[in-house]
């Protein structure tokens, strides 16, 4: 049946549009699907995230909450159609300040800012916060957004345009930045073929349930528009995927009892508007709920329901690192601090729910979706679908945030099943609820530790054990179980040590990778006990850490001797800030009874790359006969900036200006494997591969020109000019034989960091490079309400070499925002908080002032001395805040998030 609607008139950029749409349709859908205004992003369909913010008659509104009938005759402005002058100034300001990372929230942020800037050309910070309070950003920590909006009508900030060889260290604008700030960036839900079918998943309504299907064919035949219904029986390959192949256990569609709430059991594929409107209550499936466990405590109990028959005691894996005799050391210590700490499930809450599309290109299945790991997606999707690798191609779209959860498969195998069955292009877009149910989480942990110190305050030993809720499927549980014991000492000299971990299966969502892989949880345990120890030793808390900090040439609890350690430098950089913060807190507290200020400090270290496992990256770098320089860059940029940083490194290694380089990919058909965007490995590992490729290409050029070195390499069309002193050479590229991939000059280099496997006591070389950092938190605690406001964070991070300082500080600010959320508000409760109003992430009003200090202690292994940074930045924030809460109020909070009721209870307990 065809439904016709009275046309609705929208005025957009001076033009009148008449759209045929259901009057109750969300304006966001009409703008995106009917008018192709795809800068309007959909993050929640509930008014919680503000990504769809548009101006209606000049006022900001969530397009997702606006039935199109209510704007009949109204003027609508989106980022693509907003007034050019102000929009251009805002875009330039966002680029110059580095205010867009992944870019998914950027259009909404900019529309809210547009309204503000029309009324107040030079707004204050408070005015910016009030105007932008309804748009969530998960990447930036809002700091640069505030600066960019405040500065939009000021004298433009100059963006550096470094000469050849000067790119590394320059704060150039993101190379993929323009499309993020003008709204043309395409994310997983943004590309649509006109005839694409829509795929939706039928999901388990219980934490665990058996199920049987009724007559699926009859149901499908009855439902207009339904083209196919698929279940596990339709899976031709191996119905078990997972990021760690030997432990792959997750079905694309459950075949037996479901193991978590929201696990998919069937797909319904068909005509988009019909499928969108389907009520799955009629879907012929019968559920029988089974007993389930959702917490690590329940999962470990005797007689607990077993999540996987093959994994006894619900134990996925255990981890261990041990050296010396910590029990004896603790027994002989002058001071010992002991405690138990608990952390919650934390949701990644990227603003872009998982989405993508797929189609057949000949007999190759092409899947274009948001991801952090295209090659892993390819391997696992091919395996599930029973296709050879060369029949699957993965093209990552821009990822609207990832933070670890887009390392695991989401829409990919489901889209593949639908396309292979129907032969038609298909798309799938998770709702916010689906995204929060189906995606991985940060592991909740229950951790106990004892740490000892001698009379002088030197650490004598540490014993640690953590039980982690790894949820229904393996995902990255083994990585967390391994990383935690390696890092639980913190970046401190710990002569005797035993750290063990256990990953416990439950029927909660699978816990996977989330910025720090369990290290942020362990750091809470260690850093809170360090404060206790410092107090027991009668030492200043910063000095206590300075005394014990790892130094160049020290040996870690894994027995690894480490070089390029900038831990001491980070703590030393904080010293003046610590004194200032202390003085300010003292002054404040002298006159304030109910509000009390306190400060806390915590450190981090974090190994970059896979733990004791190979994880190579390969970069291809070529020059065409026409003189185009192309960098095949397979690392997915999820907002952190690898497109830019890796190109900067490659440019300097080759010795050519960065803007002369064209970036290809990522695309599994066009780019070699650069591994996954995780473990803070891209700047280090792919960056190193880029450096090696650049140097190899340069060596080829020098060889061809017979020069020792080159001061200048310049491309002018097909003529490559090289100059060294008074010697100049030219290569006519068009005269050279064209080789593989269409290049006349080409280098392809692989780098895999030198690590070794760990023995049963975790002894070995887990990582080739570590990064270090420390942060001071200054907080204000309300002693009667238990509320905490973070006033200021000072962050010193040793990045080895700041390839791009603006991107680096952007990582720091964003990590702090997520650390603040972990500390104060983020608690994912399965079945209860699968939306962005019950699950709270920091808004623009929650961010403190941030002072970033970049320490550059070169790493001997990293590219041009660089270390990873992406995850490090989150680790110290929560323990620093918790230590500051104790300093301010006496509250020893042992469970995060430190919600007001928990803080108040701890304040009362301390009285």
């Amino acid at each position, binding site marked *: 049946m065809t439904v016709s609607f009275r046309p609705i008139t929208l005025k957009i950029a001076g033009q009148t549009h008449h759209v045929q749409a259901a009057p109750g349709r969300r304006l966001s859908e009409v703008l995106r699907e009917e008018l192709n205004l795809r800068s309007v992003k959909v993050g929640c369909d509930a008014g919680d995230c503000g990504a769809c913010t548009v101006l209606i008659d000049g006022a900001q509104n969530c397009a997702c909450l606006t*039935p199109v009938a209510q704007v009949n005759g109204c003027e609508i402005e989106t980022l693509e159609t907003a007034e050019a002058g102000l929009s251009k100034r805002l875009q330039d300001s966002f680029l110059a300040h580095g205010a867009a990372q992944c870019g998914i929230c950027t259009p909404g942020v900019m529309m809210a800012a547009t309204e503000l800037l029309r009324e107040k050309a030079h707004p204050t910070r408070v005015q910016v916060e009030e105007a932008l309070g309804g748009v969530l950003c998960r990447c930036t920590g809002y700091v640069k957004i505030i600066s960019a909006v405040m500065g939009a009508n000021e004298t433009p900030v100059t963006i550096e345009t470094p000469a050849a060889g000067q790119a590394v260290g320059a704060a150039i604008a993101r190379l993929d930045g323009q499309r993020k700030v003008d709204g043309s960036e395409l994310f997983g839900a943004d590309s649509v073929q006109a005839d694409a079918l829509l795929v939706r998943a039928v999901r388990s309504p219980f934490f665990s349930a058996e199920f049987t299907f009724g007559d699926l064919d009859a149901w499908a035949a009855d439902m207009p528009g339904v083209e196919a219904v698929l279940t596990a029986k339709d899976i031709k390959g191996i119905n078990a995927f997972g990021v760690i192949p030997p432990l792959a256990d997750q079905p694309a569609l459950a075949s037996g009892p479901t193991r978590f709430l929201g696990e998919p059991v069937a797909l319904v594929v068909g005509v988009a508007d019909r499928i969108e409107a389907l009520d799955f209550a009629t879907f012929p499936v019968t559920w029988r709920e089974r007993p389930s466990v959702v917490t690590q405590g329940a999962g470990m109990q005797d007689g607990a329901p077993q999540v996987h028959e093959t994994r006894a005691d619900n134990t996925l894996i255990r981890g261990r690192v041990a050296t010396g005799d910590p029990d004896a050391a603790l027994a002989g210590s002058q001071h010992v601090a002991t405690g138990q700490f608990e952390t919650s499930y934390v949701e990644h809450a990227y603003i872009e729910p998982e989405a993508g599309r797929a189609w057949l290109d000949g007999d190759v299945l092409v899947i274009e979706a948001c991801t952090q790991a295209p090659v892993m997606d390819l391997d696992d999707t091919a395996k599930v679908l029973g296709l050879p690798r060369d029949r699957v191609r993965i093209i990552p779209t821009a990822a609207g945030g990832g933070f670890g959860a887009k390392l695991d498969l989401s829409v990919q195998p489901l889209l593949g099943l639908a396309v292979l069955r129907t032969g038609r292009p298909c798309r799938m877009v998770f709702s916010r609820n689906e995204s929060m149910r189906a995606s991985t989480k940060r592991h909740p942990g229950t951790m106990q530790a004892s740490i000892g110190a001698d009379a002088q305050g030197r650490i004598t030993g540490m014993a640690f054990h953590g039980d982690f809720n790894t949820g229904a499927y393996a995902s990255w549980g083994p990585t967390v179980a391994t990383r935690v014991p390696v890092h639980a000492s913190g970046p401190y000299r710990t002569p005797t040590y035993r750290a063990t971990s256990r990953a416990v299966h439950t029927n909660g969502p699978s816990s996977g990778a989330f910025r720090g892989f369990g290290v942020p949880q362990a750091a809470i345990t260690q850093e809170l006990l360090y404060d206790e120890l410092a107090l027991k030793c009668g030492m200043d808390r910063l000095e206590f850490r300075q005394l014990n900090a790892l130094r160049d040439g020290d040996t870690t609890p894994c027995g690894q001797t480490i070089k390029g350690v900038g831990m001491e430098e980070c703590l030393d950089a904080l010293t003046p800030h610590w004194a200032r913060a202390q003085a300010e807190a003292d002054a404040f507290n002298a006159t304030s009874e109910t509000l009390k200020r306190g400060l806390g400090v915590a450190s981090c270290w974090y190994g970059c790359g896979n733990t004791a496992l190979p994880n190579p990256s390969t970069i291809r770098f070529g020059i065409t006969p026409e003189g185009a320089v192309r960098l095949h860059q397979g690392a997915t940029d999820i907002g952190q900036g690898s497109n830019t940083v890796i190109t900067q490194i490659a440019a300097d290694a080759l010795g050519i200006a960065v803007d002369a380089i064209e970036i290809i990919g990522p695309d599994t058909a066009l780019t070699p494997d650069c591994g996954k965007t995780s473990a803070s490995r891209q700047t280090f590992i792919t960056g190193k591969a880029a450096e090696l490729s650049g140097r190899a290409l340069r060596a080829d050029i020098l060889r061809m020109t017979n020069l020792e070195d080159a001061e200048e390499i310049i491309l002018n069309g097909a003529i490559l000019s090289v100059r060294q002193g008074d010697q100049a050479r030219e290569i006519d590229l068009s005269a050279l034989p064209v080789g593989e991939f269409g290049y006349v000059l080409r280098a392809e280099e692989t780098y895999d960091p030198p690590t070794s496997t760990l023995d049963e006591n975790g002894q070995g070389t887990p990582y080739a490079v570590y990064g270090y950092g420390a942060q001071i938190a200054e907080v204000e605690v309300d002693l009667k309400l238990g509320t905490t406001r973070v006033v200021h964070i000072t962050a010193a991070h040793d990045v080895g070499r700041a390839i791009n300082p603006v991107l680096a500080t952007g990582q720091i600010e964003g990590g702090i925002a997520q650390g603040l959320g972990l500390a104060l508000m983020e608690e994912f*409760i399965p079945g209860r908080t699968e939306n962005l109003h019950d699950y709270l992430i920091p808004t623009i009003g929650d961010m403190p002032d941030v002072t970033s200090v970049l320490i550059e202690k070169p790493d001997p292994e990293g590219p041009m001395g660089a270390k990873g940074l992406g995850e490090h930045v989150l680790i110290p924030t929560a323990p620093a805040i918790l230590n500051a809460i104790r300093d301010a109020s006496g509250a020893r909070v042992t469970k995060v998030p430190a919600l007001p009721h928990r803080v108040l209870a701890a304040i009362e307990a301390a009285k």
Partner: protein
Amino acid sequence: MLDVDTYDRPHSLKDALAILGDPGIRIIAGCTDVLAATERKVIPGHVLDITGIPELRGIAQVPGGLRLGATTTWSDIIKANLPPSLRALQLAGRQVGAVQIQNRGTLAGNLCNASPAADGVPPLLILDAEVELASFSGVRRMALSDFLQGPRQTARTDDEILTGVFIPEAALGGTSHFSKLGARDFLVISIAMVAVRLDVVDGVIRQAACSIGSCGPVATRLGNVENALIGATLPQAVDRIADADVAANLSPIDDVRADAGYRLKTAAELLRRTISQSVTSQGAPA
């Protein structure tokens, strides 16, 4: 289902009431709750959109008091020039979600959605607000406190439209204040919230109205506390708030935002602070 979604947007109350004859129809306005509660891209079912009815929007002096139309948005309220007794309502409006929500969300929607955490309710309770319910059989007025019967439950019958809120002249005196306690800055559902209106003559409280929301199935007035405040001087007021008196009015629950014990403890503290802020702002309305 696609075929049965029906969307009516009449331009007069009379037409709206006529449409309301259909059973199962839902009345919608700003849609900030309705569209947040569905994953559909279209508002499902048969809906009656009352935002096309001009006379339902706006704030006006009427005989005997002040009338706020049903589809008056939070932004309308925030921007309006209102007496100091409505300052709490304006402050509450500024904390409804964020600007995007304030621009769409309406007063009637906030009341009819009947969330225990509805930001608009405590500031209206201290104004002795009455709701105006229209049907073909006429218009009736009912105290807001009677209208709200429980979480998601109101006294509105299926054939009625909430057309406005009436505030009697007698409750328009004094200055009011509002505080909201939540775990983050913007876009937050409250753990507890408090509204207070004090009418002070010669430094002595002559009239007091206090209410607390998010600490029970519906927001509630605190009659015993109000009685204790009457006759107090401003400096005495805060000391007259006893934790037990406040708690006697509340029946909070544990939820994801806080536990019940915390709500009981902090509600009294929040009330003391709101009174003291209200006292500081006496004579200096927003």
